[in-house]
């Protein structure tokens, strides 16, 4: 197990694995997102209360879920870099931040557009919305903090610390609809568990969730390769990698 773990610390290994995985992730993501979009927009029946407006769930819920997943990944990767001093941990954390931030923005914008016809307003200082907005600020903070130091290693450590401290916001976002009175509906996954959704609505949602995750994996692989090259450009193995 530890051999595998330390293999992950090797930049050429990470670079090679990321390059090999990228086309597979993209192909599978394309299939899942194409199916989810067509099935969600065309074949899923309208909701009995929300009508066709409910179809926003097919982009909103996967984006919101991914915003939390990417942040947790960033904090864990930063923690690995901080505790075990594994440089690749910081590389993965740096690569994750802009992807997570973009999906957080997507969740906020689509949530706002969904809120207007359902709640009568684009924005409310609701616990779920506010904590998701704080998540976006945390992403922006982490991305701004890293290049603020002249020494890159110090920037990595500071960004890792901020992302670890900020991870407390992840359970707050998830449980905000349980802990406080909220305009926002309960957790979609819990609703799935109770089979509130018929299969014709649920399958496209699961497909979009999988597609967004695979897309995140693909984009993360490309960004990680860029981070590895930036950090290892003096290494001899980089010559071969850049030539190929």
């Amino acid at each position, binding site marked *: 197990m530890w051999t595998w773990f330390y293999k992950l610390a090797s930049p050429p290994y990470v670079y090679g694995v990321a390059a090999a995985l990228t086309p597979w992730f993209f192909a599978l993501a394309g299939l899942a997102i194409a199916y989810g979009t067509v099935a969600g927009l065309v074949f899923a029946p309208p909701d009995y209360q929300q009508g066709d407006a409910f*179809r926003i769930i097919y982009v909103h819920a996967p984006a919101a879920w991914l915003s939390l997943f990417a942040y947790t990944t960033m904090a864990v990767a930063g923690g690995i870099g901080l505790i075990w001093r594994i440089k690749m941990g910081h590389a993965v954390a740096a690569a994750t931040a802009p992807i997570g931030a973009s999906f957080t923005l997507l969740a906020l914008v*689509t949530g706002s557009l969904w809120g207007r016809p359902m709640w009568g307003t684009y924005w409310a200082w609701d616990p779920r919305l506010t904590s998701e907005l704080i998540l976006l600020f945390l992403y922006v903070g982490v991305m701004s903090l890293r290049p603020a130091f002249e020494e890159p290693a110090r920037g990595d450590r500071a960004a890792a610390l901020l992302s670890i401290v900020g991870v407390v916001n992840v359970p707050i976002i998830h449980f905000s609809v349980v802990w406080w009175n909220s305009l926002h509906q309960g957790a979609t996954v819990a609703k799935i568990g109770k089979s509130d959704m018929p299969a014709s609505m649920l399958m496209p949602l699961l497909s979009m969730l999988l597609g967004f995750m695979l897309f995140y994996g693909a984009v993360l692989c490309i960004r990680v390769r860029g981070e590895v090259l930036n950090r290892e450009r003096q290494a001899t193995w980089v010559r071969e990698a850049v030539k190929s």
Partner: protein
Amino acid sequence: MTGAFWSMGGYARYVWPCFGFAGAVLCWNLWSARAHLAAARIRAVRAMSMEAGENV
């Protein structure tokens, strides 16, 4: 049928911008990741050529 689909039961002005923005976010992610990798490659090549120049 097609008209009903595009009108999304009267919610077209909320549903379509959501899907459009989602598409834009996916495209931006793809473009920016590729640009990030391309810039890193250029920096690596520049570093290599500078090193080669110093060794001559």
